[in-house]
């Protein structure tokens, strides 16, 4: 019937052994739950072990991403939020650089900080760009979304420079989400040239 015979009792762990293993498993489960799972998933570290292991950072990033995804879903297409951004936007230093570049933007992000810099463009317009970072490495997501359409031109992480161009498939604000995941403050200098009517910055 089976590919095995009935187990002999003497081959099996005794009830006392099983009880001991069960207790170890329960203690282990609680320990893992508090010292590993909570830091790594929730970013909460009541014992300090999670930070020691480097897992709390993972939990914090996950919580941050989850909050951003929820905020995205809530305010998607909400015009009021962009009005708030109008007022909250930090000053972006622009300078008309040498012959080639129309604008140069410099900003500094502390570890964990992020910002969005975009160019307002019509459909079929082109943007040329070059950027470099100083002090550390940076993550970015070069993208656009408007009226239910979205496009991702390029994503990168841990980069120190980049250059290129893109052509817009639809009208709207096209540009970068920048986030510093490095350990030091990072200063990014971004140069732009192309058919855009304005530069906007979200903080």
């Amino acid at each position, binding site marked *: 019937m089976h*590919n095995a015979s009935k187990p002999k009792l003497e081959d099996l762990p005794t009830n006392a052994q099983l009880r001991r293993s069960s207790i170890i498993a329960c203690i282990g489960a609680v320990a893992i739950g508090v010292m590993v799972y909570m830091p*790594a998933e929730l970013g909460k570290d009541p014992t300090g072990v999670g930070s020691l292991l480097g897992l709390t950072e*993972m939990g914090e990033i*996950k919580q941050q991403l989850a909050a951003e*995804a929820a905020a995205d879903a809530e305010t998607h297409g909400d015009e009021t939020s962009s009005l708030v951004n109008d*007022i909250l936007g930090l000053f972006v230093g622009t300078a008309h650089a040498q012959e080639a570049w129309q604008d140069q933007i410099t900003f500094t992000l502390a570890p964990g900080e992020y910002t969005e810099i975009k160019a307002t463009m019509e459909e079929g317009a082109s943007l040329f760009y070059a950027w470099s970072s100083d002090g550390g490495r940076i993550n970015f997501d070069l993208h656009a979304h408007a009226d239910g359409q979205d496009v991702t031109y390029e994503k990168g992480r*841990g980069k120190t420079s980049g250059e290129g161009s893109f052509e817009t498939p639809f009208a709207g604000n096209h540009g970068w989400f920048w986030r510093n995941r490095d350990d030091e403050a990072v200063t990014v200098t971004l140069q732009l040239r192309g058919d855009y009517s304005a530069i906007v910055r979200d903080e």
Partner: protein
Amino acid sequence: MKTLSRGSRGALVPLALLALFTLVLIPGTALAHDVTPGDAGYIQEIWGVHVIPFIYLGAKHMITGYDHILFLLGVVFFLYHMKDVAIYVSLFALGHSVTMLLGVWFGWGINAYIIDAIIGLSVIYKALDNLGAFQKWLGFQPNTMAATLIFGLFHGTGLASKILEYQIAEDGLLANLLSFNVGVELGQLLALFVILIVMGYWRRSPNFMRQGTYANIIMAGLGVLLTYQQIAGYIAST
């Protein structure tokens, strides 16, 4: 958003009061880039060597991967000696480690539905094997160690497909991948520890063999369900 180079700033002043008002109503501002949450989101934001986080992710992947756990349960179901458990689990670990590491390193992009359907088949195979079906139908017993190793290779290919979807950074890839592999084995051992406790109690019961028959029939049914879901998913995706 601040209109800079060509915008008229004076127009913003009357809007400021309105905006301050709306600010009270809307606490956060959204940065609507495409957010990838969860483990993949974390992995896509980092680079460099992160040994312990990847060990954690590997262990989590194994423990929450019910298809792997189900196969593991089938493998140890009728293994009463720790030495046999160690041999078979090592064979499974060897199999899935080889294809997981090679699969990610060389980027074998095998369709996740197809590989997961094969993993479902491995559960059916092991359940039927436990029931003695192959001896009855074929007249001989296919080598169980070879089967464990070979299905291990398929399980590893499935793991590799999932890891490729995570898009681990090139910077630190090998160390992170090895850490993930260590985590997979660690997760497997933790799951095995719990499985062996439950099986230990169960095997002491006088009804174990009869109930074991039903359990393996149910396991085969779950394998059919897993395989069906993946094939249906594959058809829907094409």
